[in-house]
């Protein structure tokens, strides 16, 4: 049974406890949530929630059915695979005080088109975004360059053109 990362896009009515209901339904039935991102869409009465979850195809089908039957759900889509454009953003804090690090980091920022948001002698904060699959690996490589901490948005996705 192949376990992979799935992305589900859920369009819901913008009501107070919709998010609580969705996450409760998943956790209550033993499904896991790897990441979750929720915000209003172009229509302020509607919210889009993107969830990534690990599981087989059969598990994913059950998850989608459980979510689809909740009140306030307008649509549920499986965006796993090629069908979607996915992005995630990391804010990363590096300790670049050590000899040689500043130059290496500056070079990486230039090459990968990351953004340097703020800096002092000891630390800097980078904004790194991209397709989430490879991104985590890239960020973890920064361990050698003084990676201290990071925070992630979670995956957002839209169906491909």
């Amino acid at each position, binding site marked *: 049974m192949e376990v992979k990362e799935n992305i589900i896009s859920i369009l819901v009515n913008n009501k*107070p*406890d919709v998010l*609580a*209901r969705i996450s*409760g*339904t998943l956790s*209550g039935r033993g499904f896991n949530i790897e990441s979750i991102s929720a915000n209003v869409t172009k229509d302020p009465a509607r919210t889009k929630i993107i969830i990534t979850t690990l599981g087989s195809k059969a598990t994913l*089908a*059950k998850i989608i*059915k*459980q979510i*689809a*039957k*909740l*009140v*306030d759900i307008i649509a549920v889509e499986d965006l796993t695979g090629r069908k979607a454009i996915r992005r995630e953003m990391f804010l990363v804090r590096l300790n670049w005080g050590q000899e040689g690090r500043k130059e290496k980091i500056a070079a990486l920022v230039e090459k990968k088109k990351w953004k340097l948001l703020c800096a002092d002698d000891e630390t800097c904060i980078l904004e790194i975004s991209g397709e989430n699959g490879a991104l985590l690996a890239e960020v973890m490589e920064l361990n050698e360059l003084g990676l201290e901490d990071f925070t992630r948005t979670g995956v957002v996705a839209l169906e491909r053109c």
Partner: protein
Amino acid sequence: MKISGAQILFKVLEAEGVEVIFGYPGGAVIGIYDEMTRQKIRHILVRHEQGAIHAADGYARASGKVGVCLVTSGPGATNTVTGIANAYLDSIPVVIFTGQVPTPLIGSDAFQEVDITGITRPCTKHNYLVRNIAELGKVVHEAFRIAQSGRPGPVLVDLPKDIMQTEIDEANLDINGGYSYEERLPTTAEIDEVVRLFGAAQKPLLFSGGGVILAKASLELRRLAKTLRAPVTSSLMGLGAFPAASPLWLGMPGMHGTYAANMALCHCDLLIGVGVRFDDRVTSKVEAFAPNARIIHIDIDPVSIDKIVNSHLALNCDAKSALAILDERLIATGFQPSPTVAVWLEQIQDWKKEHPLGYRKGGAIKPQFVVEKLCELSGGKAIVATEVGQSQMWAAQFFSFDEPNCFLTSGGLGTMGFGLPAAIGAQVAYPERLVIDIAGDGSIQMNIQELGTAVESNLPVKIAIINNGFLGMVRQWQEIFYQKRYSHTELPKTPDFVKIAQAYGAKGLRAQREEEVEAIIEEAFATDGVVVMDFIVAPEEGVYPMVKPGAPLDEMDFGTVAAGEKTNRKEKREAGEGGDDPRARAFN
């Protein structure tokens, strides 16, 4: 013209056709109760909020309408949680109104404040905390829509006290819009495929459940069974949708199901499941369930389809429409069942004769005998509510149900204490009918205070206590799996149920010998009032047949009753004489 929140509530209840509320007052709902004095709606005062929710539930199961209950905040609300989970698992349409502290106090750990929407989120179909007066009418209206549509279920509406006292201009009142539900009908292609499978079947079996009763599809089920010439079995929740008196009736399958029903499941080649969810009490060992059958699953809830059992073909739609369309198509195309179906039906009759439900008479009163007598003397006209455990199983086995909405039992959650308040709710729906609660001595004590409700509100329910001095079903498992180590399952001889009945102003009757049973029941049924019948029965009687958890359905234990021992009145009609059957395994 100004209208208050409380008035809006009653206005919407009236528009929804609500005739009765089951409830219990408190601080957070005192304003609503005051408004109630100026309203026509009937209110049944219970003695515990759990009684209110179970009564609303029983009312809904018996009548097919939405049950409504009203309780206060804090402990009043939390006292309904068991009943809400009960309604959720059995898919019963109820709307629960809970009072809440005023909106500025929410979240401050105020007196009698709980986050009831948070607590009940996993066990309600949906719930609401009303945030302002403008949305109150809409929310209540929507709650009723959601409770009844698709797969029914409980909806909770939390009403902050200040909002119920706020006033708006009646001209601004808008209750429409919001939730809508689109019914799905089966496609022509789906119907074609089902009909093709019907034609190819040599050993068809119809398996109907609670969903058929909720869909009000009993008539459509009967018609289809007749057209198909298919035998019918039904889960606990579906009993009554198909008449037990019919020769096509197999009895209930599963852990305590009949031999014939379980054998039919094991040998059928086409299983048509309608409004069932393939619960573990029926399927037992899932890998060995209906091993020779293609399964057609007709269910309104897509989540149920392929959840436990893989279907060959699934129709995700309303049972009533599906059964009607199928029957119409079969008749229109001149459907004839395969000639081998006649052989299958003969096999079915043989199975029914081989191991009819039975028990050994003699000695103390047998619980099965009590249930048989209740059935016989009620003339098949009673509404029967049950508690949970051995008494529930004996009721399901030995009471014959020929009509739907007559068997009110907590199937999914298995809630002891459900029966008495549910019987009360059913009696409210049908004041003229005989309503019986079949209880055990353990279960009856869980909501015994509702005797007060029944007496005071003139709801003449008849309570039959199968009193064996044990928490019977657990005792049976301790006998089978734990070498009779009866850990805390022996119940004391107290209380004296006859005296308790009398203390509440009801009639109390007791039978201690088999010869007394019939007279007690006759007296109870002839009494115009609440009656408690205390039947002192054999203490260690077991529910049989039994399929052990995880065993395939054809591995049934029959207890100590030998095959062919015709003690069951129901089967005496059709049974022939049988010899000793080597498959009957004497117990221990």
